[in-house]
């Protein structure tokens, strides 16, 4: 009896989250994939069956995918969709690189701060993260605007003669994105650097290495795992960013998330939006799979 109850308990504990996820994560994904093959035509019904009930012929519409790579009458790979995918990858890469450049020295000095100060310093990194992401992005709009704080400051200091446009350009995009994602870079780097074995650095000094050389030959290689983890943690969410380009970017800074949105709600082309989303998942799964393979290999070596 007890055995049975216990077994039922186990089924229950597994069953609850499992069925929740199957229904609200897996099933929607299948529907997404399904609709990406529907030929919506003129009857505007994205849920119509893919097969002809009379003849039993399955009719998959590949055009939704083809049109991503080739516009009607255009050359291959010359479409607005691919352009926005490319732009998303470019911004995500630039953001991750910037975050690394700002975050690595920061995490390094944070890890070397005195032990009783570290929790407070770390909490100060996390605190902005807990306040609204949307509001923090919005604040940059006021800071970077033509009549904004930064321009007024630079004018007052006499560094510039007239306001420079920063808002709705690459500058505002990259400032906003690296601002938002910086903690995602700092935390894994810090976790890695704080465990660094200082006796290895001392050994390097004893063998005659300068601090600079020891840093590049000992510290950086040892923190490789943290660098890669931080890079992924910034790159992946930055790729699908929706809010920052909407608030801080102009029409030239369109990223793929916004394109999916427009396709869905402005063009009302559900199959195309679904196909774009499926390709987007691909763009995220590939670097992720490479990362896990690399990590698996690194762990196997140890």
């Amino acid at each position: 009896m007890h055995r049975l109850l216990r077994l039922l308990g186990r089924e229950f504990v597994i069953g609850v989250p499992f069925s929740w996820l199957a229904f609200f994560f897996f099933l929607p994904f299948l529907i997404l994939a399904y609709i990406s093959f529907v030929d919506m035509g003129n009857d505007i019904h994205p849920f119509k069956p893919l097969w002809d009930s009379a003849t039993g012929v399955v009719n998959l519409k590949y055009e939704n995918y083809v049109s991503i790579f080739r516009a009607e009458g255009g050359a291959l790979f010359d479409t607005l969709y691919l352009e926005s995918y490319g732009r998303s990858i470019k911004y995500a890469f630039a953001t991750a690189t910037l975050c690394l450049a700002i975050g690595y020295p920061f995490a390094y000095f944070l890890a070397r701060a005195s032990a009783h100060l570290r929790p407070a310093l770390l909490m100060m990194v996390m605190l902005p993260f807990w306040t609204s992401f949307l509001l923090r992005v919005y604040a940059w709009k006021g800071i970077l605007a033509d009549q904004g704080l930064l321009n007024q400051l630079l004018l007052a200091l006499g560094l510039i003669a007239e306001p420079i446009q920063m808002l709705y350009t690459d500058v505002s995009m990259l400032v906003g994105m690296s601002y938002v994602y910086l903690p995602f870079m700092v935390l894994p780097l810090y976790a890695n650097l704080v465990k660094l074995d200082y006796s290895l650095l001392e050994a390097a000094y004893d063998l005659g290495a300068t601090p600079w050389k020891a840093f590049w030959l000992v510290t950086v290689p040892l923190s490789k795992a943290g660098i890669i983890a931080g890079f992924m943690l910034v790159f992946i969410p930055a790729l699908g960013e929706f809010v920052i380009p909407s608030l801080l970017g102009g029409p030239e800074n369109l990223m793929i998330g916004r394109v999916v949105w427009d396709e869905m709600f402005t063009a009302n082309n559900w199959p195309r939006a679904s196909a774009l989303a499926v390709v987007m998942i691909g763009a995220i799964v590939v670097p992720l799979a490479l990362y896990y393979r690399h990590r698996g290999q690194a762990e196997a070596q140890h």
Partner: protein
Amino acid sequence: MKFLAKHFGKAWMVLVYAFLYLPLLFMIVFSFNSTRQDARFTGFSLRWYEALTRDSKIVEGFFLSLKVATVTGLLSATLGTFAAFVLVRYQRFFGRTLFSGMVNAPLVMPEVVIGLSLLLLMVGAQNLLGWPERGMLTIILGHTLMGMAYAMVVVQSRLLEMDRSIEEAAMDLGARPYQVFFLVTLPNIFQAILAAFLLSFTLSFDDVVISEFLSGPGVNTLPQVIFGYARRGINPTIYAAATLLIATVTIVIVSYSVWVARQTRRREREIAAATRAELAAIGR
């Protein structure tokens, strides 16, 4: 060289903290500005706070967000605890790989994809069953899908570092499995569950993208209202909202940290006292 390096470190940290806090300070200062002026402080006033309380869209959005985030937080913490328990304690069951993939996927999936696919599910269900209407319920479902993944990560790390021998001790002393869970395991991971609730509450309270996909006409969460205003231009009312939010978050986070620190100290004291008592009993 060493002198330079030391000061470079401090200077770099100060600069990065300034970068992190500049937007927050900017909003706090300019929420008290007397005019719509963007970069010049023209005088102290509370007019934007007054405007905030009179803006019915913001007030309604706030209460909706509060409801959504509370339910999301509770659901996410519960489901996340279930999922963490499954992943840590049940090493072998049918579909484990699929399960761990599904739990973790919302962490890396773009919100746009989550929002779109859930919208398709809801529309499909509505076509088929006439239910659910797009609105608060569908927003909560979307937020919980994401919140649960984060809650799972928080609870999982606590479960992994928990000392299982105390559970075994309880079992040896004759406790039933459910007693072990409620009397030993749950108090041990409670701190993490609370953190998971706070995290998923915050994520929900802050989310724009999933809400934009899943909300119906006339149903707008606070971030959706703010997002609408923000795209139109500068509006100090939003700065006032931001200032209130920053104050709330700071109070909650600081008191949570103080509570955790106090708990940790109390536990250390109790362990020390127990050790002393034991040593005394042995007669040393």
